[in-house]
């Protein structure tokens, strides 16, 4: 009941802002697609593939990450710090773990919606992503993981400025370092350790392998699931913080 209430509320928000949300979610991936994919993609190959084909799975991972994270973190921080409407959940008979789960799920659905554009770009450009159930599962885990991180950040930050700083310090570096745009094979060992500690690295690797018709890379799947579980646990704990 609690989860459906939260999803209903977020659905109303999404419905009211459908075009604004849809257009804003399309801009960044489209720019990356045009500049890196269509620009560099004509003259470059990575791992023996055209760069455009290599880039699209990375964009799929990055776009679902950014939109899952942003949709939850923005909504929760505005409700908590600005509108104060978040406290309606806290004084209602809503169980804290369902409060967290409902918002994580809503954010993940928004992230997966944005992922649809990348799949459409893949079809239109002929980049040829191998669509299969495991690919959707990997995208879903990626979306859930970053929706949970967004919820956690929004519950812990005390101002919109803090929220912005967190995004700049944590999310933006991941967008560029975790293998979205280039292969991690040749990078220095120390940097490899750092990027392997970042959750997006694992989901990008998973999504890329599966997009190329490969099999599930289980160490990365396990890491992604573990990150998701850890973030979700911290989200529930954060719901017990004072408001």
């Amino acid at each position, binding site marked *: *009941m609690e989860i459906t*209430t939260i999803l209903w509320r977020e659905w*109303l928000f999404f419905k009211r802002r459908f075009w604004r949300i849809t257009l804003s979610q399309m801009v960044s991936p489209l720019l990356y697609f045009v500049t890196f994919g269509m620009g560099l993609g004509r003259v470059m190959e990575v791992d023996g593939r055209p760069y455009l084909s290599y880039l699209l799975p990375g964009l799929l991972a990055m776009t679902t990450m950014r939109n899952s994270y942003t949709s939850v973190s923005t909504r929760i921080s505005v409700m908590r710090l600005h*509108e*104060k409407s978040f*406290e309606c*959940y806290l*004084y209602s008979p809503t169980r*804290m773990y369902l409060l967290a789960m409902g918002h994580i799920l809503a954010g993940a659905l928004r992230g997966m919606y944005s992922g649809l554009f990348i799949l459409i770009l893949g079809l239109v450009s002929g980049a040829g992503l191998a669509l299969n159930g495991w690919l959707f599962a990997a995208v879903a885990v990626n979306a859930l993981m970053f929706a949970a991180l967004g919820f956690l950040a929004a519950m812990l930050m005390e101002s919109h400025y803090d929220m912005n700083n967190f995004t700049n310090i944590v999310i933006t570096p991941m967008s560029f370092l975790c293998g979205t745009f280039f292969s991690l094979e040749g990078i220095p060992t120390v940097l490899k350790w750092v990027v392997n500690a970042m959750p997006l690295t694992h989901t990008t690797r998973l999504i890329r392998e599966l997009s190329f018709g490969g099999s599930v890379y289980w160490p990365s799947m396990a890491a992604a699931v573990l990150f998701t579980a850890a973030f979700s646990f911290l989200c529930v704990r954060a719901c*017990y913080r004072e408001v």
Partner: protein
Amino acid sequence: MIVCEALCKSFGTVDAVREVSMKVPDGTFLGLLGPNGAGKTTLMRMMTGLLMPDAGTVSFDGKVMDRNAVEVKQAIGITSQHINLDKELTVEENMEFAGRLYRMDKGDIAAATDRLLAFLGLDGVRTRVAQNLSGGMKRKLMIAKSLIHDPQYLFLDEPTVGIDPNARRDIWDFLRLQHKEGKTILLTTHYIEEAEQLCDQVMLIDGGKIFRENTPEGLIAEIGSFKVEYDGGEKRRSEFFPTLAEARARAAGMDVLCNVGKSTLEDVFFHYTSKEVGGWR
């Protein structure tokens, strides 16, 4: 019955609530009266599970309140001091959202929405987005939301702050009706008239401590039901008397201009703390 036992809450070095114990019997309309910063809102937020006490407990009919106290929360309705409506939702959608949070089915939500919006004069703005409502309408909608599940206990934190006198009177009438129907209502306010008009029990709070508790009439009688006010140099001074005749006799013997009148809760508060509660006089 609501029972608070030795509630304490500090924020850094500030003791916001200091060992507050109180019992609120069912059916009471209790006013917590005090100036800004007295600890009213902190106390109410602890009672409603939004803040965890540093020490002490709050219980409703023996069930302890905490963040996961689902059964207790189902029995209480809360109107916050600040407007916390979903601004993008319509009046109806705000009501439905509140009803869903309290696990009501669609039919019950629709029936309660019709009844409450009609009572509070919001029927004509059902499809208006909340951010486009007037201040008074927003306050009324918040009260309607807090009552959608017909709670046994109603907490109102400064429910009429910042609204015009007509809307305030409407809300008072509505709250009197809710009290008549048997609800236990706890109201924080710094409007003296609000407490005098509505509450059958008043607690005076200052510096995080409740220092007086009685009926409004009883509190006034404690200091004297009539007062003589006069210019005492730097500030107005008051003397209190149990009867009008005594007050008049005192006034007749004074060689400065003075007023004789009935004492108010504001006088009670000032008498004990040398502070004014604020709001109207």
